């Protein structure tokens, strides 16, 4: 492992954030290393989205420091161009673009010629199992297909970090489960670093190497590690599930 890979790709150090008088994030610290898939798990109002927005660079912290790929994502917003990609809770596809052109959007913003962007986007659509749907417009796609395009759009730019903001929560249980499995498989294959926000314990158990359970206002309640072997161990997962549920206040949100 190189020195660059050993150092954290994302680092939050004693980060606090208030909205008005309301404390949303309370001295939160955590690090994410290269290739890790980390879940930020918590109930609604636990501050997950605030943390996600700080990682995206759309809001600044009041105290402490946030570093993403070596820069402050808010103050050096443009420095993360091409290094960070986000998939949101809703697909947020552009309705006037086909599935292929939606997946190519990030690449075009990075300045890739249209033909090359479309070629790469086509490969990514195939990886997320959307062969044959390239020319379909958004209204011709199902909810699950749209979310797959959204994931392809994020991964196609070959970012160092992928942020997922409740990307599977709007889908039905079966579609969500399939998509989670496919996504984590692809992310592990290409070795991306991923932070995802969820309120579902099952999402976190299925996808994450590490689960950070947040309790309102976003402070770290517990941290769980899950190896590939442990992910196959139902008894172990049940124990982790119980610990997380206790830390979240006894019941799963949502």
């Amino acid at each position, binding site marked *: 492992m190189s020195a660059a890979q050993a150092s954290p790709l994302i680092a939050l150090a004693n980060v606090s954030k208030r909205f008005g008088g309301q404390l949303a994030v309370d001295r939160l610290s955590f690090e994410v290393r290269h290739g890790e898939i980390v879940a930020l798990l918590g109930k609604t109002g636990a501050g997950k989205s605030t943390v996600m927005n700080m990682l995206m660079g*759309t809001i600044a912290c009041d105290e402490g420091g946030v570093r993403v790929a070596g820069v402050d994502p808010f103050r050096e917003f443009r420095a993360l161009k091409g290094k*960070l990609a986000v998939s*949101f809770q809703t697909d*947020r596809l552009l309705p006037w673009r086909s599935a292929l052109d939606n997946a190519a*959007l990030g690449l075009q*913003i990075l300045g890739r010629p249209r033909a090359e962007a479309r070629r790469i986007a086509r490969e990514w659509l195939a990886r997320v199992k959307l062969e044959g749907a390239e020319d379909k417009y958004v209204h011709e796609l199902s909810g699950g297909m749209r979310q797959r395009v959204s994931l392809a759009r994020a991964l196609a730019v070959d970012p160092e970090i992928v942020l997922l903001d409740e990307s599977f929560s709007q889908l039905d249980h079966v579609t969500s489960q399939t998509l989670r499995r496919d996504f984590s498989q692809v992310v592990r294959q290409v070795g991306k670093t991923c932070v995802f926000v969820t309120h579902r314990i099952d999402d976190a158990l299925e996808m994450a190497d590490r689960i950070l359970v947040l309790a309102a206002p976003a402070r770290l309640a517990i941290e769980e590690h899950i190896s590939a072997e442990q992910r196959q161990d139902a008894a172990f997962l049940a124990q982790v599930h119980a610990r997380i549920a206790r830390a979240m206040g006894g019941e799963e949100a949502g």
Partner: protein
Amino acid sequence: MQQQEPGGKQVIGLFTRLRPHAGEPAAAGNARREMIAMVVVVATLFAAMEVVSRFVPDYIMPSPLVVLKSLLESLRTEQSHIWITLARLAAAVAFSMVVGILLGLIMGTYAGIRPYLRSLIIIDTGIPALSWMLIAVFWFKNPEARIFFILTLILVPFYALNVYDGMRALSRDLVDMIESFRPSRVQVLRYLVGPHIVPYVFLTTRSVIGYAIRMAIFAELVASAVGIGSRMSLAQSTFHIDQVLAWTIFLVVFNLVVQGAVALLERKLLKWRPEASVR
């Protein structure tokens, strides 16, 4: 209250349900019905003209045949006037579209400038077209400048306000999505704002085209010695009502052709938009 019709069609209370993806056959049926209605209305109007023309003098209502002959004669001998009017219209609409879009984008982008521009445009919309026509006669010697000035001042506000409305309707979610890729301002305009406002530009064009034709003719009548408006003025002063009616028919048909062409272009460029139909 929901109920199921025998054919499986769901009816919700007094209102029918919107079907966003099932519009194509219904749209084709609607177009056919509209075409039939148009033919019926035109035939009825011509029949009414023919009947009235038998009871009143020719200078009040000539027969449709005389009007059509006059129309063919005008199309043969007055082509230069037709092209001048069309060129004036095309130049004014194109220029107004560009300036209106720019003003709309500026209003949507720069909050500091927005209230000033908006006030200016709203004041402009309150000024009667006739005032601009008379002012243009005082201000400009060149008739082309007069007509261009009049049409531009009348049309720009429509484009500016509609494009601004379009920008206001832009989803915050889409802005956040594109911002997550860290684009430049030009890229945001190119990939997000530009395509988003295209339907608003089409809507404005379809709305103003008939109005623009009327204003162009009116402006030519007041401010120019050439063009269809000036020919209509001449026909009126020489008691040739058949020519007035002939030019009127030409303008109506021209309006329908332009509307059809814009609608065709709109369908081609906005094919991504699902057609909704109410059943």
